[in-house]
């Protein structure tokens, strides 16, 4: 949650700068009667808004910089959050160009509303057991989480990481009673980072992005619950050309390299 707050704190000034930049554009040409419309059209072609799952924060921010470098004058703005929330914002008419979701189900909400066509799976993410570096409960396999003395955090089943966790546990035939069902994967990870729980099921990429603050443990049953990440340009995108270009970048070898380095598996 803290992460998300700081993200907003970063995003707000960016958005403000964008708005004030645009109004400055308009006031530069006070003589022309049609000053508003060129400003508006230049705004639509020089700003790209990407709605992406929280787990893509680090990789997409990096790709956004690459995109800006390759397209001078273009400003990429991100809205990172829970895929389900983003999907709802899009169907309610939020002005976004690209949607990258952490699950096919959340993307389906958007395609069902005819807001996006033909999503492409661009990466896959696998679960890992995350434990504090000193691993106080001595967890080393999935079965250890069933011990009632081990405090476990899972994502709520309504969010993709929670659905994946249930799938993995079912595949292993295990029953885990967590102490909490968190609202998103970053909140789940935070509980491990603070040492409030002994273990949690989160994505491998989240473990990597936490640096040394948590330790990740692979488990074989994770193969049964691999999460596909679909991406699609949106049909009502204010900047359709840029949207397509950004999706191409994510699907390119360059995009793949960035994502794989962060722990994703190539689709």
């Amino acid at each position, binding site marked *: 949650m803290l992460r998300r*707050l700081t993200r907003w704190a970063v995003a707000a000034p960016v958005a403000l700068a964008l708005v004030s930049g645009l109004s400055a554009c308009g006031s530069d040409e006070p003589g022309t009667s049609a000053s508003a419309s060129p400003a508006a059209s230049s705004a639509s072609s020089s700003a790209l808004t990407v709605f992406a799952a929280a787990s893509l924060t680090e990789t997409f921010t990096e790709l956004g910089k690459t995109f800006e470098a390759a397209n001078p004058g273009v400003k990429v703005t991100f809205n990172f959050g829970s895929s*389900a929330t983003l999907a709802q914002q899009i169907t309610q008419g939020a002005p976004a160009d690209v949607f990258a979701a952490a699950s096919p189900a959340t993307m389906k909400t958007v395609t069902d509303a005819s807001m996006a066509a033909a999503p492409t799976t661009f990466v896959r993410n696998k679960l890992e057991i995350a434990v504090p570096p000193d691993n106080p409960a001595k967890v080393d396999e999935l079965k250890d989480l069933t011990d009632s003395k081990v405090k476990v955090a899972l994502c709520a089943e309504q969010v993709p990481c929670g659905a994946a966790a249930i799938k993995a546990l079912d595949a292993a035939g295990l029953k885990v009673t967590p*102490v*909490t*069902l*968190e609202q998103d994967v970053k909140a789940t990870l935070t509980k491990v980072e*603070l040492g*409030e729980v002994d273990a949690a099921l989160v994505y491998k990429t989240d473990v990597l992005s936490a640096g040394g603050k948590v330790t990740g443990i692979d488990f074989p049953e994770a193969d049964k619950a691999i999460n596909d990440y679909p991406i699609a340009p949106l049909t009502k995108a204010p900047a359709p050309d840029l949207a397509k270009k950004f999706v191409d970048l994510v699907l390119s070898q360059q995009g793949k390299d960035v994502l794989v380095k962060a722990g994703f598996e190539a689709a």
Partner: protein
Amino acid sequence: MVLAVVGMAFLVLPLAGLLVRAPWSTMPERLAEPQVLEALRLSLVTATIATAVCLVLGVPLAWLLARVSFPGRRLVRALVTIPLVLPPVVGGVALLLVLGRRGLVGQWLESAFGISLPFTTAGVVVAEAFVAMPFLVISVEGALRAADLRYEEAAATLGASRWVVFRRVTMPLIAPGIVAGAVLCWARALGEFGATITFAGNFPGRTQTMPLAVYLALETEPDAAIVLSLLLLLVSVAILAGLRDRWVTSA
């Protein structure tokens, strides 16, 4: 007048939005789900206990701030309002850092008494009381400052003990302030979300209060979220209206 109407519309329209979008046809079956009633019960119980905790700790604190002059009183008064300006999520993190398993106080609580507050119903009460207490303290302190000291002095000169003065004179004088503070406190505790989900987590039947249930329902089933919101709203308005009638008749 116009501004008053705009003000009212601003407060009431979102409620109208909920009513318009509510899925009336599926309402009964959605309300019958055991998780819904469990969350409602938990919300009412924890908000009430949190209000009781706030009364026990908050009234003496308000009295101290209003009646006792000590160095640093203004600073303390400012510190009391911290939970009001702190984003609740940050409040939750702060609570974890103090009362969590590895927190300053929590570490000691666990090793000495085996008590761990995060992820328990008691943790929900702690989070709610932390966020709601300033409402009570500010309101009671205001009442205490407005109460005329001469009544208390007169009672004292007539031979009443300090306890009798407090119970028979001060309390009736500031009762409206205490009631108003308690109502605000209860309402704030009932709607508490950020500090609760951060400090106490989310588990049905143990720490999942209505606002948490609403938030998670919104992820997959916006209709269910609307039903839950309306239920919470209806129950809280009914309780507050019922209480008000009682005070009005008894006063």
